[in-house]
């Protein structure tokens, strides 16, 4: 009579199990390795240039960079013009996208199932899929040509703001949907007008959800290059005037790429950009986790 293990063929099954386990581990490593490789490459190549001056000084010109490279020194100057430009445009884009996005999200939440809301939701979803360069073109046509009459930070912010919009609309709607209906009813039953219930109870209750959406949207647009090339153009000086051309971190990376003397700066700029994106992403994760 055969023993149960012979019938059941446990040996072969254990082997199969091990193979699958190995495969799972291998594929996980494959998934994680690009980000590890990218970050380590950026750190190795970029850390040298990443000093205080890099953050507070404006871009060097080609001659300065060439001399430094020839003498085997660090390239002087930094990318303060780009950092400031990125911050300026992200803040401005948020100022455009957050109010509009939250109000649209509230509208969608309050009008579930109505055709106008469904249409708005679909359009917002389509907007999310529009290539960013197309948004840049639209901003060029509307803002650069007719509002600021030239390349400007405002035009760049407009393009970035439109990119942020669908994410904020969606996260607002989803967050509000998760808040129990009775909270809204309790507020209204106290004789509080709707808009005060919204701003005094619903939005504070869903604050972390809204914040997560906003931070993810910011971290998404902060690295956008294409729309800015057509709108903000770039600038080698520090600019705070929103109607003038302005630099941004992704834009200077592109400029450094085109200038053989400044190649070293690519890595440090990319490293800085990566740190900023990661910071926003991780903060968003933290905020989302703090919800419970």
């Amino acid at each position, binding site marked *: 009579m055969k023993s149960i293990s012979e019938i059941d063929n446990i040996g072969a099954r254990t082997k199969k199990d091990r193979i699958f386990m190995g495969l799972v581990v291998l594929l996980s490593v494959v998934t994680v390795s690009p980000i590890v490789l990218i970050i380590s490459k950026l750190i190795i190549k970029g850390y040298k240039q990443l000093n205080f001056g890099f953050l507070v000084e404006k871009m060097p010109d080609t001659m300065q960079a060439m001399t430094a490279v020839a003498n085997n020194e660090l390239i002087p100057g930094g990318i303060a013009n780009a950092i400031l430009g990125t911050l300026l445009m992200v803040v401005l884009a948020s100022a455009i996208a957050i109010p509009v996005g939250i109000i649209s999200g509230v509208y969608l939440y309050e009008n579930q199932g109505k055709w106008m809301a469904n249409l708005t939701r679909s359009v917002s979803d389509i907007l999310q899929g529009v290539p960013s360069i197309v948004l840049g073109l639209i901003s060029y046509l509307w803002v650069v040509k007719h509002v600021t009459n030239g390349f400007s930070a405002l035009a760049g912010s407009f393009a970035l703001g439109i990119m942020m919009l669908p994410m904020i609309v969606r996260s607002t709607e989803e967050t509000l949907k998760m808040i129990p209906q009775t909270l809204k009813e*309790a507020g209204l*039953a*106290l004789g*509080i*007008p709707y808009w005060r219930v919204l701003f*005094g*109870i619903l939005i504070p*209750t869903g604050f972390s959800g809204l914040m997560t959406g906003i931070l993810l949207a910011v971290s998404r647009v902060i690295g956008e290059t294409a729309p800015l090339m057509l709108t903000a153009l770039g600038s080698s000086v520090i600019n705070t005037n929103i109607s003038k051309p302005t630099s941004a971190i992704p834009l200077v990376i592109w400029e450094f790429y085109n200038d053989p003397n400044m190649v070293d700066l690519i890595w440090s700029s990319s490293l800085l950009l990566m740190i900023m994106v990661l910071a926003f992403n991780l903060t968003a994760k933290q905020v989302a986790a703090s919800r419970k």
Partner: protein
Amino acid sequence: MNTNILQIKDPILSIQDLSVAYDKNVAVKNVSVGIKKNNVTAIMGPSGCGKSTLLRALNRLHELYENITTTGSVFLNDEDIFKMSPIKLRRKMGMVFQRPNPFPTMSIYDNVIAGYKLNGISQKRQERDEIVERSLRDVALWDEVKDSLTKKGTFLSGGQQQRLCIARALAFNPEIILLDEPTSALDPVATSKIEDLLIKLKENYTIIMVTHNMSQAARISDYSLFMYLGELVEYGKTKNMFTNPQDRRTEEYLTGKFG
């Protein structure tokens, strides 16, 4: 005229021919009833009989939902509630919900004062303190929370949260308090505390409470409505109804034949 419906003299709230429908389904059918001031009135009936629907019509909460239509009239001190501004009406009719629902981002103090604060009513600090203390004392919660007023309302136990919600409704000094099965999510100890509280509160307020717990209605209510399938079947003094129900359906419900 239905002889099973008690006529109340000088009611604080007079409901006349009130019907409520969800789309085409009529949930409350032509209810006419008067509510006596400074008494506890219980609305009883099996699930789905329209108890909560009737209650929520009284502070016009149904207007939030477009698929609900309300017809008929309700007079609060001879004033037609459907002609009042809903905001004014709701300040006169506090509401407490089935599950405790303190505002999660607010402290205990802010929860009680929320009605004032969120309405943008400016007050002196001292005035606010007084309202908070009075309301919390009214619900016998003051001694338990007076040292932790700045803590979040959601840190309290379920029964405490529900008393906080009652305090929140009392802060505006409403004339009527509407309670929608206020103890159904609570344990027996918390339930009995709330029941004692309601008996005390009727000195100053008129209380209308939905309950599907018959013994609770018997314990604390002075008047009872019995509803069945959206109709008001019987209305009278609770004592009389429990000892000598007029309608066969009331009797069957009270003796546990259905419900």
